[in-house]
């Protein structure tokens, strides 16, 4: 009896234990189910964890529709033809006046297949966080291009990496010709990220721009330093002329 009495709760507790064990197992199973479902759900989402994937262009217009590349890059000459000797293309062709627009810049990752190799937190940051100077060009500011429309998807190769689409020997065909149909190597030597022409650094990195800029600015300032006081003094002096009115005529 005693046994029975004691057995009952024991059985009950055993039943309880059984219950909790099976419940636990059920819980675990559904938890695993949810987790694996989450995992499956997250796989397509994984891409968007790249902060730079959010890039959206165009308040003014979308340029993707302007990308007219045929995809047949062989259509474009890699080496420039029919160019005058003056046409100097940095990295491709020496002209009479050798010149390299970005030679004077101190850059370290210029020949990597992935220029951001092992840069921490690169995935979570947007381009402009680290490259603020490069956001001030006409393509980005006015034409509303995104960085990747030129620099491409991951990995972003260094400009001078041999197989980089940005390498001057093929930049015109692989990058610029997407929008500027028929672009030549000479055209592609346009300095997209134009340095501030007034800057002293530009004297080294882009001397022609620097000197022409300051030449034009001094001409402008010189003109107005003369013309504004000249006009002002003239205006004042004329107030003191004594002029007789002619008869029968309106004022000229």
């Amino acid at each position, binding site marked *: 009896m005693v046994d029975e009495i004691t057995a009952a709760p024991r059985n009950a507790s055993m039943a309880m234990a059984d219950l909790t064990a099976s419940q636990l197992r059920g819980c675990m199973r559904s938890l695993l189910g949810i987790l694996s479902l989450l995992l499956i759900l997250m796989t397509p989402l994984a891409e968007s964890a790249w902060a730079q994937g959010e890039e959206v262009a165009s308040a003014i217009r979308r340029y993707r529709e302007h990308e007219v590349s045929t995809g047949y890059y062989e259509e474009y000459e890699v080496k420039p033809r029919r160019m005058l000797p003056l*046409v100097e293309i940095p990295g491709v062709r020496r002209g009479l006046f050798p010149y390299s627009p970005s030679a004077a810049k101190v850059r370290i990752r210029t020949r990597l297949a992935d220029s951001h190799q092992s840069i921490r937190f690169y995935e979570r940051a947007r381009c402009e966080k680290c490259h603020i100077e490069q956001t001030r060009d006409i393509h980005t500011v*006015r034409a509303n291009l995104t960085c990747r429309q030129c620099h491409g998807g991951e990995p972003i190769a260094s400009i001078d990496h041999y197989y980089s689409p940005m390498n001057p020997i093929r930049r015109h065909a692989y990058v610029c010709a997407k929008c500027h149909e028929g672009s030549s190597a000479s055209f592609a030597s346009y300095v997209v990220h134009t340095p501030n022409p007034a800057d002293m650094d530009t004297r080294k990195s882009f001397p022609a721009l620097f000197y022409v800029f300051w030449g*034009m600015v001094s001409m402008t300032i010189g003109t107005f330093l003369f013309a504004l006081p000249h006009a002002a003094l003239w205006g004042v002096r004329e107030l003191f002329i004594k002029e007789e009115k002619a008869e029968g005529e309106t*004022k000229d």
Partner: protein
Amino acid sequence: MRPKTRIRRFTPLQRLFHLCLLLSFLTQGSTGLARLYIETSWGQGLAWVFGGYETCRTIHIYVGIFLIFLFLTHILYLFSKIKWKEFPRCLFTPDSILLQPKDIKDLIQHMLWFIGRAEAPRFDRWGYWEKFDYWAVFWGISVLGITGLLLAYSLIATRIIPGWGLNIALWVHRIEAILAMVHVFTIHFFIAHLRRHNFPMDRAMFEGSVSLHHTRNEKPAWVERLEQEGKMENALVPEAGAGRRALFLLFGYCAVAIGVFLLIGGMVNSPYITW
């Protein structure tokens, strides 16, 4: 018949040149500034007038090409006006628009007169400031026309110049355009409208003639020369009627209003754009 109180100064063709130049200059100024200032609401408003950022570019390019043709036509016109029989001499008469030593003398004497140190110079047909304005347009159209063509047809242009030349062309185009606009909207408008001699407006370029009386004061050498050579009779014309005068005044002040609007808007908004 109204009394003949004015001297003929510009032919209808010359006035047409000026009118075309005026209209296309204002168009180029507005569409160009609309594009330069597209980041600001002022620039967007300006671009809206012309149908947006891209249409501004189209208008700017075609009006620019029109200006280049106007310029070439004007050069042909100049060659047709040179009296080839008296060839090199005819370039240095007082009627010539070429800069001459007398202009330097006039300029110095004029500035001494501003500060009361000399008599007013006796200007002939073209004052040195008028010659300067005329040749400044030559310089401006050449520089803006060439850099503009390079930028507009950049793919063809980079066969002749290297691509990085476009960076330079763009800055030259900008600075020259700003120089031209500030000069026209301040100095040129001041001299033609606000100066007491011309207030409220110098109608010479619209009406084609200037008041004999006023010109006798400002350009005595010209008037005397006309009288001595016996050409005065032929040169005199009557004044335009009140309706046409009012039209000239209205048109002139519209141009001034647009110019001042562009000048002030451009200055106020200049810190807010990426240059």
